[in-house]
């Protein structure tokens, strides 16, 4: 197994002539909680999407715990939990049905899955809403249900793209607490515009500017 949870070498992403990510090389050790900061269009979402196997880089390589995000996508997805801007939960299904589907796709056996769903739903304080269709949930509750989804398979690397957006103070606190308890030992990468919130939560911060890492502080 690799020494690093995330290792990127010269990754870039272009959309035609637009350079969303120019050249990013970095190493993140297991257990680090990394805040990815930057203005809109700085490249932080593109970077997180590449390490979360949502996007393929135009150039360079990225490895998650030694596994190549391009060539070993399936293996990478087993160890990564990705929370995007948009919810990945299905509107017409209940929270529990959504979690059942994702759990089955992660090959969690039926008995363990039942217990695991109970655990994660309890953790994000969604117990009262487990039988409610996702379309009936508020933005904050929906985000919590997505958080339950990523915790289901106990990922070793958790990637959160703007997890605090649209959440009130109590919801942010709940999210941070659930990350601390469920994500213990896991490597966490989270992007945000909220500098103070990231500073208080993360032990390392990276600032993205114009598709590059402009500063990297607090790394081990």
């Amino acid at each position: 197994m690799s020494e690093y949870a995330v290792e990127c070498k010269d990754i870039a992403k272009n959309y035609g002539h637009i350079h969303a990510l120019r050249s990013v090389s970095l190493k993140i050790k297991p257990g680090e909680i990394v805040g990815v900061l930057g203005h809109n269009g700085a490249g932080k979402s593109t970077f997180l999407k590449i390490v979360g196997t949502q996007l393929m880089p135009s150039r360079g390589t990225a490895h998650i715990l030694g596994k190549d995000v391009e060539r070993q996508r399936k293996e990478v997805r087993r160890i990564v939990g990705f929370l995007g801007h948009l919810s990945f939960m299905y509107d017409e299904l209940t929270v529990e049905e959504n979690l059942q589907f994702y759990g089955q796709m992660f090959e969690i056996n039926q008995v363990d899955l039942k217990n695991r769903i109970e655990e994660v739903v309890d953790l994000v304080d969604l117990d009262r809403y487990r039988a409610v269709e996702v379309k009936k949930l508020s933005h904050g509750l929906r985000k919590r249900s997505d958080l339950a989804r990523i915790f289901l398979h106990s990922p070793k690397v958790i990637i959160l793209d703007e997890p605090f957006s649209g959440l009130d103070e109590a919801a942010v606190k709940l999210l941070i607490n659930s990350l601390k308890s469920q994500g213990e030992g896991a490597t966490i990468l989270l992007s945000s515009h909220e500098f103070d919130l990231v500073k208080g939560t993360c032990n390392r911060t990276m600032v993205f500017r114009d598709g590059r890492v402009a500063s990297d502080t607090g790394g081990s």
Partner: protein
Amino acid sequence: MGLLQESMQIARRDLLIESRRAYEILSTIFFTVSAVILISISWGAPISITIEEGAAALWIIIFFTSILSFTTSFAREMDRGTIGGLRTIPCTPFAILLGKVIYTIVLLLLVLVVLTPMSIVFLNIQPTARIFELLLVLVVGIVNLAFAGSVVSSIVMYSEGKTLLLPFLLFPVSMPIFVPALLASEKVLRGLPFTDYSAELRLLGAFLILVIMISVFAFEAILEE
């Protein structure tokens, strides 16, 4: 988990979603019923409709009904952002396509359940004309259409004009399905023996293998943008 199991999970989820949106299934059924009745009235069926017209009517209805299901297949995942969820699960990309194909086949078979008896009543399609052989041809055609349509649906999902692009691309792609399926249906309805339409079925089989081979190699690139 094997390929088929992964696909079945995806198809089961899609069917569960569809069952919660019953109005969409009902609109497809209503489209089928109204199309049969309209054709019947327009062509003066069942008295004056020929076998060729009856077979053509069947396949025209199946083709247009399939477009209704393809417009929601991948497009809905894209519009709602849940396509990202499919990119988080550790399964073979082809399993996702196969799941969508199975889901479409189930929906089109449901249409067939309504269409077949209605065609007997309104389109002069005689039950004595070997109904099981006709069903075999219809099912083979539907499986082909579901595969080709799902691939087209996945290709156009990133486009803003997908509702225009889908029928535009599906039309030429479905021709190698439509023509032999139509000819085979006609021959069955005429009461010709299997050997007379086995060439059309072989053609459909060959096209299906071609579409599967292309999608096995190409779908990963389509899904991952």
